[in-house]
């Protein structure tokens, strides 16, 4: 019974993260020195109806926008490859979308190492999608290291969800 509200919260959090993250598209001046804004370029396109198989919400929730990793690892599990094959199929039939693959780590690691580890995870996803026929020109990768955990408890249950690579859709492939 308690799982349902939690799941809803999770979905809500994902939705917010997907449309509300200024760092992903931010085109601010370098460093934001001296307090200048740098808030430009936030993509606020709607997620659409999750029952519509052409919507971003459908991709995020039904296809699955993320894969999880073991501690320190960037190897794709069988389950992860299944999710990515689904992503590749969806992307093949929706050529207007470009993607950014975000690599993340849990908090049990030093900052620099986790940045490098997140990059490794994002690259593992990118490589797999390339192997499934997605053009490299449609993809970018970014590592957030341990800077953007999804779950905030300090237990393995949360860590497991934070060791992730998330495929984020945006309009404008080949732009």
């Amino acid at each position, binding site marked *: 019974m308690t799982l349902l509200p939690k799941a809803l919260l999770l979905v809500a959090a994902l939705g917010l993260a997907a449309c509300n993250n200024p760092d992903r598209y*931010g085109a601010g001046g370098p460093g934001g020195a001296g307090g200048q804004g740098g808030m430009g370029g936030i993509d606020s396109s709607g997620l659409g109806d999750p029952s519509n198989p052409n919507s971003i919400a459908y991709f995020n929730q039904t296809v699955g926008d993320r894969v999880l990793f073991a501690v320190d690892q960037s190897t794709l599990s069988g389950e992860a490859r299944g999710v990515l094959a689904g992503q590749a199929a969806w992307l093949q039939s929706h050529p207007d979308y470009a993607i950014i693959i975000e690599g993340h780590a849990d908090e049990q690691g030093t900052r620099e190492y986790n940045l*490098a580890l997140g990059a490794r995870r*994002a*690259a593992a996803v990118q*490589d797999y999608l390339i192997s499934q026929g997605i053009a490299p020109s449609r993809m970018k990768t970014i590592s957030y290291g341990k800077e953007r955990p999804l779950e905030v408890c300090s237990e393995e249950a949360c860590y497991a969800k934070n060791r992730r690579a998330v495929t984020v859709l945006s309009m404008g492939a080949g732009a």
Partner: protein
Amino acid sequence: MTFLKHLPTALALALACLAAAAPAHAERLRIVIDEGVIEPMPFAIPDFIDEGGAGDYARNIARVVASDLAGTGLFREIPADAHISRVTAFDAPVAYGDWQAINAQALITGAVQASGDRIVVKFYLFDVFSGQPLGEGLQFAGTPGTWRRMAHKVADAVYSRITGEGGYFDSRVVYVAESGPKNQRQKRLAVMDYDGANVQYLTDSSSIVLAPRFSPTGDRILFTSYASGFPQIYLMDVGNLATRSLGEQPGTMTFAPRFSPDGGTVVFSLERGGNSDIYALDIGGGNLRQLTNAPSIETAPSFSPDGSQIVFESDRSGNQQLYVMSAGGGEARRISGGKGRYGTPVWSPRGDMIAFTKQNEGRFHIGVMRTDGSEERLLTASFLDEGPTWAPNGRVIMFTRESAGAGGAASLFSVDITGRNLRQITTEGAASDPAWSPLLP
């Protein structure tokens, strides 16, 4: 003087420096940091004398000096209400008996004069039980806005004369000021005095910023920012906050930058296709050089103070360990050998040790080891300690400590290299990734 014969050579040399000031009795007023201090040295510091226009400065400067010294854990202040003598004039004879009676081993007296935009601070340090000054009086002058710096300079001089070590109080720390919930942390660069005073924010929080590092002269800062949308290293001029990106290469992430000891080169990690290696770049004119070439993660490079070597971390053995290579790259030798994982190595400004973060059995530690990996010593233990930075004298380490759970927050702590005197630095909010400046001129 027979005591002198038993002193180790290094200590005897240090004493020789003091001998000019107090030839017969220098050994009485002495703290040897390497041996650790069980009982802090008692000292007294009455409010400084107002020699005209000083106002609150006379008291405030003495308070900052006292706070600096007591904050090391090596000294203990005897409060003013226990003082018997009153110091009424800067050059008045010292009533040693009165200070001996309350067991003050060191006495610091001072005077302040202020007029217009100039303030002058002078002080004496007395060895109470040998009944004479330790070193000569010193005077500092500056604008009123620098009064805390002048207090730190007084404290540095006192600390140096008694410990034989360089000071570190007149220094700054650049760090990341944090706010907001754990899953949407806002981060901006800030600098403060080493004790948390005089905070100045250098960026707004529109982009994630990470791990700033001071240049060897303290005038520039290297850091990693997501301002372009992707992690890149930037160089900021502390004076005017002018900022530019360094070594930008499309499709790559650059991070973990650090200056060479001459300030002319930045060494950092560059990630391409998921693989991170260490590179060097001349700050003036480019010339990107790849120093490692391995499919593993190579990051967190730090130069030896003579510029000849670089210590870094790599997981080429299967997990994070520390390696040392020539500054030009090439063959690296592993120096960490204990249980667990080692990261974020930083070479001591004295050249004798390397500080690091260690993870073992679910705990994080800050530790130090010799540059060959021997004599490993863990100084702290907690849920998450990381990212050590050295005080300019190589005797104190500051680092990030983060608490666990949904409400977890980062704060700055310092500890001395004997593992004593762990204390939190007071900051306005949560703070992480400290980097110590050199001693200010």
